[in-house]
């Protein structure tokens, strides 16, 4: 819109409130779908990597070629732990035992879980935060608060993990994601059920030592392992989850954007057809085709801006609702993703404006003189 000019495009667009309402709603639904998908994806990424990011370990050592927790099975000989501890620059090293299993309440309700076995003393690689109770002793387990709520469990209740009936000694936080939860048991119990092999060795560096340098030293000193810094391990974990979900998210996003395209295209075309005579008048009065074209583009822009603003508000509401009713699904809206969706939607809006644009450019000013 040019300053000081009558905003004909905007007035035309908002003249029929029902039509513009449907248009904006259609665009908002399309944008909402994309925003929420992106939000769930980003939230899941944060949840999935929460344990890794919160861990005090600077370096993760795993079996050769194993680079992730998810979809992986790492088995290291028990002596790997001492080998890592003997590397210069290593302040501490702890074993982490890991498998995938289910946690089952006494009423039979089940939830997919990672089972982490760790040494309760010193307990560096155990749950980051225990909100109720305490760490596990033999025959005990720490479960996550979301799972505890879902399965209506509390400290002192009993669950079945890896075929063993365990007492809940504590409840941790931030260890449940859209796919699974994490429960923690003592290393001794894990070894008794699953064998002596260590899944990962987590190491902390001495003060002032760089994590990547330490990782290189460990890799050189301990053969047949994959050694990654915490950030590398996080990136790998993100990548595998992204690779698993990208296709479905891409398909859903394309569908949502196509809905947006159809809504913008059809509604602008309908508006252009309804205003064809008036556009003829404007052309007769001296408007060049460029001005009418700019009007159609402005209408697409307005539709997208208003629709997107509504979508953002709705997305925030959806995020709140999901947090309340499905705590294991965390929605995280990230500014780059929001900006990306807006730009995509703008492009969709401009694409949707092409057909009405073509029509408006063909409007004959003489049509203003033909009787209705």
């Amino acid at each position: 819109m040019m300053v000081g000019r009558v905003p004909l495009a905007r007035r035309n667009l908002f003249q029929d409130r029902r039509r513009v309402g449907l248009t904006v709603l259609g665009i908002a639904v399309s944008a909402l779908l994309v925003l929420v998908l992106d939000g769930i994806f980003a939230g899941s990424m944060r949840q999935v990597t929460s344990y890794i990011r919160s861990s005090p370990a600077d370096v993760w050592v795993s079996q050769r070629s194993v680079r992730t927790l998810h979809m992986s099975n790492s088995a290291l000989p028990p002596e790997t732990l001492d080998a890592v501890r003997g590397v210069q620059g290593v302040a501490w090293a702890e074993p982490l035992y890991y498998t995938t299993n289910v946690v089952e309440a006494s009423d039979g309700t089940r939830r997919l879980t990672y089972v982490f076995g760790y040494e309760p003393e010193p307990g560096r690689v155990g749950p980051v935060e225990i909100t109720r109770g305490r760490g596990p002793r033999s025959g005990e387990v720490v479960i996550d608060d979301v799972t505890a709520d879902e399965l209506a469990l509390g400290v002192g209740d009993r669950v079945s993990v890896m075929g063993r009936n365990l007492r809940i000694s504590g409840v941790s936080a931030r260890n449940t994601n859209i796919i699974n939860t994490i429960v923690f048991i003592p290393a001794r119990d894990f070894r008794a059920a699953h064998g002596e092999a260590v899944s990962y060795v987590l190491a902390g560096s001495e003060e002032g030592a760089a994590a990547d340098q330490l990782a290189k030293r460990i890799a050189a000193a301990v053969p047949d392992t994959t050694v990654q810094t915490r950030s590398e391990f996080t990136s790998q974990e993100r990548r595998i989850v992204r690779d698993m979900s990208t296709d479905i998210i891409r398909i859903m996003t394309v569908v949502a954007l196509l809905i947006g395209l159809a809504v913008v295209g059809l509604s602008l075309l309908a508006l252009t057809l309804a205003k064809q005579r008036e556009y003829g008048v404007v052309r007769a009065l001296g408007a060049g085709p460029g001005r009418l074209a700019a009007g159609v583009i402005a209408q697409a822009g307005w539709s997208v801006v208003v629709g997107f603003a509504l979508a953002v508000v709705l997305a925030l509401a959806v995020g709140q609702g999901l947090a309340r009713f499905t705590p294991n699904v965390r929605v995280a809206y990230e500014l780059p993703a929001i900006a990306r969706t807006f730009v995509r939607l703008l492009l969709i809006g401009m694409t949707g404006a092409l057909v009405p644009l073509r029509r408006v450019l063909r409007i004959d000013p003489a049509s203003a003189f033909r009787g209705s």
Partner: protein
Amino acid sequence: MQESAAPAVRVRALTKTFGEGELAVHAVRGVDLDVAPGEVVLVMGPSGSGKTTLLLMLGAMLRPTSGSIEVAGIDLATAPERSLPRLRARHFGFIFQDFNLLTALSALENVELACNLAGATGRDARQRAQGLLERVNLGHRLRHHPDELSGGEKQRVAVARALVNDPALLLADEPTANLDSSHGQEVARLIRRLAVEDGRSVVIVSHDERLREVADRTFWLEDGRFVQLSALSTDPVCGMEVREDARWHWRADGHVWRFCSPECRDEFATSPGRFASRSLHD
């Protein structure tokens, strides 16, 4: 009217032919016309006679097949295509049969938009639009939208809109066709006043016999040519003005009714009494 002044509009041998060969339709054939500043010219004629085609060519909306149209020293027939919108915005005022106000805009905005197209923006455009609406006695209806205005008010807004660029030539297409008698006369007088007070040339295309009262000259266009104007009578079916020597007529009881088309004559024939009494009553 200023007889001695140089014409504001000079049309020479203006011709428009649609199609080619046997399918060619000669809408306008070799029309010559000079319109002096302040002169009101009325062009009448039956449907399909070429009136609107002539008007479109005068308004730089249709290219003639041959001939010339000079307005404000510019030959519209040879002006580059992309300059035509600007010419329309700067040199012409248009008044349409259906008012053609933009329904999403108020009366003030309708006029202001035309100001914008003529190059004025912001407060200047708004003040000019308001002044013009006050000139046509619509100062109290500035914020009203077209659907809140009467037919006469709408046409006055359209007249104000046509004046925003202080046009040398005002082109009016059936300006009274959708108005009742009193509003029609009101608009006709307004157009006349604008021509006289501003020295503006006006070309009106219409069937409305009442407009002859405000015209300095009246031309009869038939088959694309100006022909000598003879006495007119009224088609008793559609109410259109037709020449006394019109091709389609009906004789009964010593009276002759004349029609604009064979369809009107045939309709008359189905119930002559009904149409005849209406005609005589009118």
